[in-house]
């Protein structure tokens, strides 16, 4: 009985125990499945597979890894594959994870690319693609909205957001310079005392 009561408290340790037994092949296979099935955005599939199904990481680790993935250059999907792979099996785990998650979509776009090159100018396909491209714009805008709700910590952040857009699209400063200039200003604005105040907010 006492063992049972202690069980939930041991969960993080248990997860690490699970993790120790994972083989490179299993990592590759799991990320291959995610890479082949994650239509419409990888993050929910990652959580379902790594946290719920396999229990290789717990929810807290997942959120932390995701926030690291978002702050670093690189796509969330591939950064997550690297971080989880690293945790489970070091360098080889990372490589297995990233190859697994990229392979299905990469093969598909390889074939789609060839097909589009040969048949992309058919009126039928041009018409479909016009709709698809417009939808993609709406999709990116919805990502902008949901990220703004989720990850902005101060109202003044909208000024940094606008400054970034103007620097890239109007002043044509280029992404690297914009990133450095506006990035540093924004980090200085969120200096530790400010950051502490903002993160206390629910």
């Amino acid at each position, binding site marked *: 009985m006492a063992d049972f009561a202690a069980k939930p408290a041991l969960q993080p340790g248990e997860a690490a125990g699970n993790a120790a037994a994972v083989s490179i092949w299993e990592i590759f296979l799991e990320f291959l499945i995610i890479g082949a099935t994650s239509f*419409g955005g990888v993050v929910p599939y990652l959580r379902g597979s790594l946290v719920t199904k396999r229990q290789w990481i717990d929810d807290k680790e997942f959120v932390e890894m995701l926030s690291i993935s978002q*702050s670093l250059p690189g796509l969330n999907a591939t950064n997550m594959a690297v971080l989880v792979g690293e945790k489970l099996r070091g360098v080889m785990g990372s490589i297995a994870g990233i190859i697994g998650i990229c392979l299905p979509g990469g093969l*598909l776009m*390889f074939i789609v690319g060839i097909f589009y090159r040969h048949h992309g100018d058919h009126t039928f396909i041009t018409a*479909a*693609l*016009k*709709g698809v491209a417009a939808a993609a714009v709406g999709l*990116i805008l919805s990502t902008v909205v949901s990220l703004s709700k989720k990850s902005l910590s101060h109202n003044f952040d909208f000024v940094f957001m606008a400054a970034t857009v103007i620097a890239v699209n109007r002043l044509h400063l280029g992404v690297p310079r914009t990133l450095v200039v506006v990035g540093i200003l924004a*980090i200085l604005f969120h200096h530790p005392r400010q950051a502490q105040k903002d993160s206390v907010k629910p």
Partner: protein
Amino acid sequence: MNEIPALIRVFAYLSILTVGGGMAAFPEMKILTVDVHEWLTFPQLIHLYSVGQMAPGPNMMMIVSIGQWAGGILGAIAVLAAFFGPTAVLAFMVAKAWKKLEKWPWRTSIQQGLAPVSIGLLLAGCFSMAKGAVTGTETAAIAVAVLLILMQYKVNPALLVLASAGIGILTFMPK
């Protein structure tokens, strides 16, 4: 002509710019792949990116198509390695350091500060794509409809993109 070295240079550079998502690199990707190297046209870039939204996995796999066009199968592999290699190495190295920095007060500052900038980059990429993709009332209506539906309901975005292909055929097919 061998385009592989240029492909590697361009996509390794673009990879570093993808802070907050692949779309952050889109303005620069347009300049380098369309204007400088002429591997494809702007409409083709928009089409490949949009079709790529229906593919599973990381949402920038359309780079494989660009690599394949410019350099065949080797081009495709080179582009993949160049685009995902540098950021993968960085993530690998930073992951450990980042955990140790948990107590460092500037860690939160960096996260909070980069959030609006990365969202801004996403929006900038979105606008530069919209220049080619939203060209009239119909396309604007599709973009707004997708945005509103996604904000209101939990729908798989890939399905919406697919549905928009159908709407495109119905709307834009020459009669």
